[in-house]
């Protein structure tokens, strides 16, 4: 697939940056256009793989933002994007949309800029283009607290109704002991970038001579066509490239034997991908459609294995809509299986976030209601005997 990618806010920008890095390292060419949008000038300097003119500062003239971020307030994030929509549109003008199959908007949903500004950006994209717009959203962890949960729960609603598919990533699922803040976020971004790029980069070369087993962009788009929330699983294994031609030839001769072990390996890989950490934990059987991409040297992808893996997933995901295909990477030393579960409807984390958000919203409303009165009673004495100076 060929994508135009837009990162909104700090988390979104870092993600796009990480995707570009992974692409570069693995010789893929997925992101034909990349753009980051932020409200904080300092954060805009962080991405390393983007040119200066691909970084857009919004809200620098907004009274409450002034180029210093929006302080985690999604309302201001949306306001700022709304105000500077012309600025954003102007940058889109450079995107030659006929060159890409779809647009991907990445954002962290806990902060103010991502959760607030991204839906505004998506609205605009949907107005301007016929191509599908996908969302990639990072959900805040439980420990990030009430305000981020509220931002995320509200933003999720906007995202899911506006995008053609929303790929979710749960921060909590990727939290581990012993990480520093720096490492923690870097590792998460790497994991997510690996998954998303391996999945979507399949079929990027349309006139591939590899033939009928190759995954097509249209297959991926068809799977994502369901709308709703999607989750991605991933597993990979090292494949030692054949060192000697003789051995390879020998292997080729004894095809029937190695084929069966390869097939078992392939099926095992897909099981692992589905049962391992999904980007957002979910009940696999609640998926509407599913798709498997095998990325690696074509000669290790056993047809038999692909078919039995597909059948296994069909059963597990309880859907007949399961596509499987290859993304041939002849020079790769790993074989990766990416499983896309499209429109999963049973995701416990999203329910938790919503509960946390409802509590947070109630608390915030309670505080708002009594604020003025409490301040007044704090600064005046009980019988109101004292007078202000002026």
């Amino acid at each position, binding site marked *: 697939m060929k994508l135009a990618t837009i990162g909104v806010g700090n988390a979104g920008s870092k993600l796009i940056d990480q995707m570009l890095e992974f692409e570069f390292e693995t010789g893929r060419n997925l992101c034909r256009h990349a753009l980051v949008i932020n409200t904080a000038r*300092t954060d805009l*300097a962080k991405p390393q793989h983007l040119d200066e003119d691909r970084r857009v500062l919004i809200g620098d003239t907004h009274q409450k933002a002034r180029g*210093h971020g929006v302080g985690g307030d999604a309302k201001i994030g949306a306001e700022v994007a709304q105000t500077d929509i012309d600025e954003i549109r102007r940058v889109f003008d450079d995107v030659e949309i006929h060159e890409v199959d779809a647009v991907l908007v990445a954002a962290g949903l806990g902060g103010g800029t991502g959760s607030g500004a991204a839906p505004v950006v998506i609205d605009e994209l949907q107005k301007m283009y016929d191509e599908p717009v996908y969302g990639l959203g990072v959900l805040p962890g*439980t420990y990030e607290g009430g305000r981020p949960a509220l931002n995320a729960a509200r933003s999720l609603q906007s995202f899911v109704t506006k995008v053609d598919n929303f790929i979710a990533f749960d921060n909590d699922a990727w939290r581990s002991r012993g990480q*520093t803040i720096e490492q923690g976020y870097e590792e998460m971004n790497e994991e997510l970038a690996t998954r998303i790029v391996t999945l979507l980069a399949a079929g990027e070369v349309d006139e591939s001579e590899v033939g009928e087993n190759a995954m097509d962009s249209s297959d991926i788009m068809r799977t994502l066509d369901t709308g709703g929330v999607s989750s991605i699983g991933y597993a990979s294994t090292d494949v030692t490239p054949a060192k000697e031609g003789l051995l390879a030839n020998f292997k080729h001769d004894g095809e029937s034997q190695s084929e069966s072990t390869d097939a078992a390996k392939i099926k095992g890989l897909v099981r692992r991908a589905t049962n391992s950490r999904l980007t957002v934990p979910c009940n696999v059987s609640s998926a509407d459609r599913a798709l498997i991409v095998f990325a690696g040297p074509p000669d290790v992808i056993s047809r038999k294995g692909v078919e039995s893996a597909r059948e296994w997933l069909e059963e597990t995901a309880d859907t007949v809509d399961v596509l499987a295909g290859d993304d041939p990477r002849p020079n790769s030393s790993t074989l990766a299986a990416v499983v896309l579960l499209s429109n999963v409807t049973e995701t416990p984390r999203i329910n938790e976030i919503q509960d946390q958000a409802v509590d947070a919203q109630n608390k915030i409303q309670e505080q708002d209601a009594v*604020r003025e009165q409490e301040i007044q009673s704090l600064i005046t004495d009980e019988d109101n005997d004292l007078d202000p100076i002026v």
Partner: protein
Amino acid sequence: MKLALVGVGGCGTRVVDQFVRAEHRTGRSVTNGNVLAFHTESQPFDKTQTLTSDQQVLLGDTHPAVLRRDTSPPAPHGEQTSQPPSGSETLTYTDVPSSESDQATSPTGTEDSSSNKSDPDSFGVGGDPDIGAQVAKADRPEIRRALDRIDETDVTATMLVAGLGGGTGSGVGSLLLDELSSIYETAVYALGVLPAGNEAPIRALTAARGLQTFVPRTDSMFLVDNEAWRQDNSAIADSYSSINKMTVERLLSVFGTGERAGTPLSEMRIDPADITRTLNLGGVSTIGHSTMTLDTQSVGLLRRVLSLLRRSSSSVSTPVDATQIKTLISQAVQSKMTLPCEITSADRVLLILTGPPDTISRKGFETGRYLLEEKTETVEVLAGDEPVQKSTELTATVVLSNVTSVPRIDNLQQRAVAAQSDPDADTSVASSAHSQQSYTLSVTDQNSTQSHRDTQRTEFDFGEATTDLDTTDSPDNET
């Protein structure tokens, strides 16, 4: 974030001066020269080290009630001049670490501080906030001209600093706040110092009225409570210097975050908008603070050499345990805040973790933040880290915005009401305490200046030895 600081009165002037000094010492750049000090008498200006003459604004030249130091007869409003003994204003005399510079800039300084005339409330507006307000009204053009020197486009907010017990601080300060909020589009904060319980009742009255005037005029008002911070069993004057240091250190931890040259970009950076959003509720705010020293001893010499060779980002390479970070954050909110209060009454909370980037455990940070949410019973907790390379300390700073359950303020108001309803008793108390206190002051002055000089340099250590003064670290000063 960039902040303009406007000090008013003796206390305000000193805090602003110390703040600028601390910026230099810690390599943080917050005010960028956007600093002003207003007073109705000139002596506190002479004691400052960083303020240029341009930044010192003397008010009340034409007002009949303003008493200048060089005018010998007492002012016509005799009652006021005798009323208030020294309070937080006495900071002047214990606060100045360099007596050399005093003598250089103010030949009369030493002489004054040992005489009865050292009572700061005898000069200027004589401790009367209503006269202070009159003076400020009369000098409005002068005030506006001075405020022009602040480049608003250069700063995110402006903060007024004042001792609320003083006539100039509360009186002139009230008018200044009016001016600031009418000129500036950006946020206006105030930092107010509340008088201690053993200061004159009239100062409690002034402070309670000042509080009532200041709070509605600011986006947020930080308070420091002298009563909570004065050291037991010692003359109040001794405490002021350390209170000022504590105040400046905490202010700088909040507003100086990310303003250090060469700071690496952090993942969870505190943006100026995070600070302004936390504060923009109105009401009263308070700051808690806790520091732990990182165990550098465990890092052997070899490892240190190795890390030097690898040009490692930090000298401390052992990540701090998540539990320790959680404890540190919990200490910051349970420790003595600048204004002690019921922490559950906080409306919004800001947490800043300052330390070497490779020691801040993500898990510790996140559980610590969550703990804050539970302890303060609010869901509006913004948190971030400030990586400081080569630092040997980890600091947690917590801002509680709009705290509404504050016993100290209730107490202040009770004292104020008592002082207002019985002014005679107040005067007699005040005048009897007057001479005695001034005496204590002048006696302790010599010693305390000396001793504070030592602690001052060491206590205020942000971990980066930028000057020679910072290197003498003594364990006593660690919190």
